[in-house]
């Protein structure tokens, strides 16, 4: 029973790591720029397709991952400057309409280039085998997700808490006008953060492809999950999105095990209750409290 509980926990955490990697960029950009970016999942999808493209052609898996982070990052930067920036002062309706339009563009583009079928990433042989983790054998891929997710979370944590970039970022999230007033180049900070957020989404889409398979409908299918992570965590809160992603991953996994017929709704019930309890999210940034 104990080993089973540990399995459910590991399943939940590995799923949560994928949600975290993809959503963390969204949480920071939404908190920072107040743009409801529904197209965020498309950057993750593009990352997944790129990783699929290169791994299927026999390129090194880690090279493919790097490209899967870099290209969405560059695309994100270009989109920020050309498409998103004019939106910052517009109302939420314009933001939703334009970003959902971007989703359709991305969906049509990958269908045209890669076809209508799901597009799998070929993981290296050692990741597709079960490995011995002491009390049982467990899929190597899930272990990889947990390790990579933990490393990236630790790096982000350090950068946001201890670096000058992190200090600026926190300052701008908490009060963008004040940050501008003390001479910070908030525009540059926005673009930089957007690039990093999209690159992380691309990376998350690539390494998470074993759970969330790249396919044309990817962005529409999963955008709700990513938004839930952001809202439950608290817009703009990096730590909040980590906690929220873990919590949702574990709740979803436990639901499927213990009360399977209700599993599709359980996640939403949990979100509903969490938001009743903490309407600003689990760990909202200071500006929101």
């Amino acid at each position: 029973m104990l080993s089973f509980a540990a399995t459910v926990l590991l399943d939940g955490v590995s799923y949560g790591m994928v949600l975290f990697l993809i959503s963390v960029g969204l949480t920071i950009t939404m908190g920072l720029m107040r743009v409801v970016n529904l197209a965020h999942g498309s950057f993750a999808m593009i990352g997944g397709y790129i990783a699929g493209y290169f791994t299927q052609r026999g390129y090194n898996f880690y090279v493919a991952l790097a490209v899967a982070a870099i290209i969405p990052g560059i695309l994100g930067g270009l989109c920020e400057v050309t498409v998103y920036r004019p939106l910052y002062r517009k109302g939420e309706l314009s933001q939703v309409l334009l970003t959902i339009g971007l989703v359709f563009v991305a969906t049509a583009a990958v269908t045209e280039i890669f076809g209508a079928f799901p597009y799998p990433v070929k993981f290296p042989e050692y990741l597709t085998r079960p490995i011995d983790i002491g009390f049982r054998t467990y899929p190597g891929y899930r272990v990889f997700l947990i390790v990579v997710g933990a490393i990236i979370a630790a790096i982000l944590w350090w950068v946001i808490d201890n670096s000058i970039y992190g200090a600026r970022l926190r300052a701008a999230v908490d009060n963008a006008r004040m940050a501008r007033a003390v001479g910070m180049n908030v525009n540059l900070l926005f673009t930089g953060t957007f690039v990093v957020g999209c690159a992380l989404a691309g990376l998350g889409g690539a390494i998470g492809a074993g759970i969330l398979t790249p396919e044309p409908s990817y962005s529409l299918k999963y955008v709700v999950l990513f938004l839930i992570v952001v809202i439950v965590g608290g817009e703009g809160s990096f730590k909040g999105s980590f906690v929220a992603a873990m919590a949702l991953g574990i709740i979803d996994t436990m639901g499927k095990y213990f009360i399977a017929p209700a599993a599709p709704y359980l996640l939403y019930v949990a979100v509903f209750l969490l938001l009743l309890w903490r309407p600003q999210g689990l760990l909202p940034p200071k500006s929101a409290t």
Partner: protein
Amino acid sequence: MKKWVFGAATAAMLSLSAGTASADVVKIGLIADFTGAFATWGVQFQQAIQAYQTVKGNKVKGPDGKEHEIQFVYRDNASAGPDKTKQLAEELVLREKVKMLAGFDLSPHAMAVADIANQAKIPVVIMNAATASITRGSPYYVRVSMTIPQHVVPLAQWAWKNDIKKVYMITSDYAPGHDASNFFGKTFQALGGQIVGNDKSPITETNYGVYMEKVLQAKPDALYMFQPAGAPSVALVKAFAERGLKAAGIKLLGTGETQEIFMDQFTDDLIGTVTSFHYTETNKNPQNVALRAQLTKQFGAKAAPDIASVAAWDGTDLIHQAVAALGPDAEGLKYIDFMKTAKIDSPRGPVSIDPVERDVIQNIYIRRVEKRDGKLNNFDIETIPMVKDPWKIENPPKS
């Protein structure tokens, strides 16, 4: 998409040239999804129809000795649901004056044209739409595809005969999935088998780890899956191997998940999976060999036949035969009466049309996934001859 536009352009050109040709033109309206989520259906239908007409010619000699050209007019349902289907069918009947309708990938689309077929008195040749009850919807319906229970019941019987006593079911939570778990469960239990788990997964599920843990604990002899082709079935098979179920000796059973057109997405983990289906891509029937060769020649090395292709091939054959026997201007029900007794030389094997139900009766093949010449594919291990839709046996027509 491009191919479809090209096809439409070709059709338009043909209709222009038909004015000067001596043969008259019999138009058949084909409605399917050529764009959107279900786009592969339309593309596969169209390629098979074009392949058929290239191999066998697009003209038939009628009873009057004159040549008639059979011309398909394609309409894109654009994955937009039954309202769109209705509108397209009306347009085809009124403006294009089609003599028959054909195609229909999804059940609601096929059901939507019953009234139009009844009023216009024209046959509707259904090339997929697998909900069992559909053919009762109008006397003008003829189906050349399949029904879900037709696959599932023989699979449950095969499992029981092959020492599988306990089965765990993971079926997708939508109407065909419910049919699948219902018919598999009751057939298997009636034989004395035990269903040790029955999970319904959301239709878009791709995270099967937890389900597999439950299966491991229930220790069945086999896992029966009914999952939408593509992401869900690929993810299920991956989790099945990753979580050690395959290593534990649990057999994996399914139906349409392992079609050749989806094989690229799977890994070798799929080897050994047993499925039941009405068409095995690797069979050696002359018609199948002809279909495969023509698809490759006409549409490139990647074109592979699937159930949409064989149904379109057979549906086209049925339409050609009907026009050859009765000419271009017979009454709708005369065509239907002819089709009830027609012989179809199908790529899948023996096929006949049930004269009472106007539905397909066909062999069901039990196949195992194997890797031969470096490629995964399905290979027949057993044939269950001439299976009639079990739903119709259970629900006889009211007289």
